[in-house]
């Protein structure tokens, strides 16, 4: 097990190194480009040369990469062009905001999807199964950029019940979280439900469930003791992947509701060609992607004795 964990972590680090090299080559291969982006299009050639010399951009590429990596590991990505402050000063609070949004979404999605998925999967083909399946397919097939304006039109303009934007300027306000969470839940719960349902339905057709039913165990106990434990292994992985999806999937929602999170930041950085901010955001996104992946693998192994003991 330990070796497996070590191997996963090793793979994780390797992936990040490769991505960081690609990212660095993509954005900083040409120093003149960096200088133009940092100093602006109206800077003179002379100013750019001075800046490049000062920042050590005239050194060979590998050296520049290692220096960049060394700083990046310590969390120093340089100054944001748009925000005029060190990248970390914008990045961490924004990441925190997205974590709040993601946690709130997951807090609704996980219980809702598991309950609905189990209910649907318990009796495949029943009326309950059909209704839940249709509902989850419909909600999942409506993209956020469609559901967000629809929900906004209804709750903000028509009912005047909820705040229209979620910029949290007056401090953290849970009410402002409702609409963005609603949009994300609506989009995401159907998918997790479907995965849970499939897993549950599969478990229900296995021999041990049939045996348990035939030996006369109460149905409730069959589900609780035998089916659930096995059926929830697959949804665990799915849920871990949802965390990764949330990080990039929130761009639309955060933009639409002016929620100052990571998605908003990554969009803003790309639109403004805020080069150091893009690098930092990309590295964070990659880290979250590989970390959740590794955690999913490790967790899956731990939960599934057949893998654990083989």
């Amino acid at each position: 097990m330990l070796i497996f964990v070590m191997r996963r972590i090793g793979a994780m680090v390797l992936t990040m190194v490769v991505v960081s090299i690609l990212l660095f080559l993509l954005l900083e291969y040409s120093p003149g480009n960096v200088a133009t982006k940092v100093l602006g299009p109206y800077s003179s050639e002379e100013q750019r040369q001075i800046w490049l010399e000062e920042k050590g951009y005239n050194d060979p590429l590998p050296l520049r990469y290692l220096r960049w990596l060394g700083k990046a590991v310590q969390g120093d990505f340089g100054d944001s062009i748009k925000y005029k402050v060190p990248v970390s000063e914008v990045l961490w609070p924004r990441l925190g905001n997205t974590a709040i949004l993601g946690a709130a979404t997951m807090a609704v999605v996980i219980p809702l999807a598991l309950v609905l998925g189990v209910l649907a999967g318990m009796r495949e083909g029943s009326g309950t199964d059909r209704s839940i399946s249709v509902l989850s397919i419909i909600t999942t097939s409506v993209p956020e950029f469609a559901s967000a304006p629809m929900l906004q039109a209804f709750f903000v303009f028509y009912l005047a019940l909820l705040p229209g934007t979620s910029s949290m300027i007056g401090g953290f306000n849970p009410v402002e979280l409702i609409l963005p969470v609603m949009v994300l839940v609506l989009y995401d719960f159907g998918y997790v439900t479907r995965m849970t349902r499939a897993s549950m339905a599969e478990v229900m057709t296995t021999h041990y469930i049939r045996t348990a039913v035939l030996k006369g165990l109460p149905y409730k106990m069959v589900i609780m003791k035998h089916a659930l434990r096995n059926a929830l292994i697959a949804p665990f992985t799915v849920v871990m992947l949802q965390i990764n999806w949330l990080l990039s999937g929130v761009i639309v929602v955060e933009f639409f509701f002016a929620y100052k999170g990571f998605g908003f930041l990554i969009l803003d950085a790309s639109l403004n060609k805020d080069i150091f901010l893009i690098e930092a955001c990309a590295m964070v996104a990659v880290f979250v992607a590989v970390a959740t992946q590794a955690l999913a693998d490790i967790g899956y192994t731990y939960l599934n004795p057949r893998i654990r003991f083989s």
Partner: protein
Amino acid sequence: MTKDLKDETGKRIHPYVPELCEQLRKGEVDRREFLRTVCLLGVSAGAAYGMAGRILGEGSPMRSALAEEPKTGGTLRVGMQVQEMTDPATFNWTEPSNQSRHTVEYLTRTGSDNITRPYLAENWEASDDLKTWTFKLRQGVKWSNGDDFNADDVVFNVERWLNPDTGSSNIGLFSNMVEEVDTGKKDDQGNPVMSKRMTEGAVEKVDDRTVRLHLNAPDLSIPENLYNYPTAIVHRRFSEEGGDLSKNPVGTGPYELAEFRVGEVCKLKRRDNYWGDQTFLDEIHYIDLGEDRSAWLAALASKQVDMVWRFDVNQLEVAEGIPGVVVNTAITAQTAVARMQVDKAPFDNKKLRQAIQACVDHNAILQIAYRGKGAPGEDHHVAPIHPEYAELPRLKQDYDKAKQLLKEAGHEGGVTLPIDIGNTTGAWELDAMQAFKQQCAPAGINIELNVMPSSQYWDIWDKTPFGFTSWTHRPLGVMVLNLGYRSGVPWNESHYANPEFDKLLDQATATLDVDARRKLMAKAQKMLQDDAVIIQPLWRAEFTATAEKVKGYEIHPTVYHQFHKVWLA
């Protein structure tokens, strides 16, 4: 020698004023133009309104006391992008100037009625030849750091604007105060690199409260130029003390910066010891709601903000439908131009440009892209609301002519032209260009629409051979032509260089008499139109929305925020 005329306070008045009175009496100028011009010549706004009232035999049109008694207190929350505001002289757009407008002030102030009034300058006089402008500065104005405002501040600012190292667009605006010099450097072709800088002695400190500007050529629009968004007056030690307004916000205005985070919030608090009348708002908050303007209206609908900076024409119905919200509309000289760089192939071929022009039905684009709210463009960038606007025969869509010109241009088989679009003032830009594309197609001109984010467009706006650039409102026609079409000025994005046009512009800029100026402008407009430098589909109206409780707000044609009289019910 003209006899010196004096007004009731004994102040010398410009000799042209009586002639203007005569013209108003005869109906040769309208009331608005009369007010505007006499104010420019140093007559106070109150006196000007009085003169107009006496001549036209009407009561004082100055609005009587507001129906409701203004209340002091409260916070006005405005939805607007919060941008960096390091240096007011290098502002590229209106948002940062609105953030700083309540902290740093201007020498003059152009109101929502297009009339320029005294502000930090108490009054001013122009010499008869319009080449020397003397500004008397207001006394008793204190900077927020306790210093007295004086002539050194003004001299410092003017010199700084006109120093090429500052990189301020003001160098084009005050072109009559700069000279071209050889930098001593050579470009790739070995030609000397020329640079523009302030003419020696163009700004003179007469005494502690008097500043005189010496121009190379007559210029009418000096007072109005002094209220352009990059001309805010910063403290005389601005550069020494870091040169960053957001970190060291010293100003003369009624508010001081309390909190500032780019992309999030800009909070201003009323300060004590403001020189002017008491303002009513305790605080002004600018709240960044991102780039999505539908989010702004949603924030207004749910009372998260009291006002949005502006919204797009396609949101008009939504805004009008929100209960408790007032939609404010201003007729403006705001526009966008599909400008072609006349020194880059294939646009260096005038016949090709004229062929494109012949395809366009301006009014149709106005109807499609802006719901007819505004006026059709005429490809010369002088708006019908400009006083010196000369009416030219309307341009007509003519495909036979277009095809003929295209043939003469050597593109008989058709031509494909990519245009960059940044939607910098909203999605209407793309709508307009889509209509434009369709109008060009029958002649064999294939316009390729290359849409990009607005911030990316501002990186290339003056570099792309063919781009659709938005231009903000300016009160005079000569101002925008000086800024955008005079040879070699920084904002001349089309690289149009026509000495004859420059000469006409010089003359027009020096001509106070509106009718005479209009005759010169007719020639300049025609010249620009015939050279087909720009395709200008339309002039647009500007919209903002405010909550009903916001009182005393008047929308400015350039959506500048003037909150001195704004209060909350």
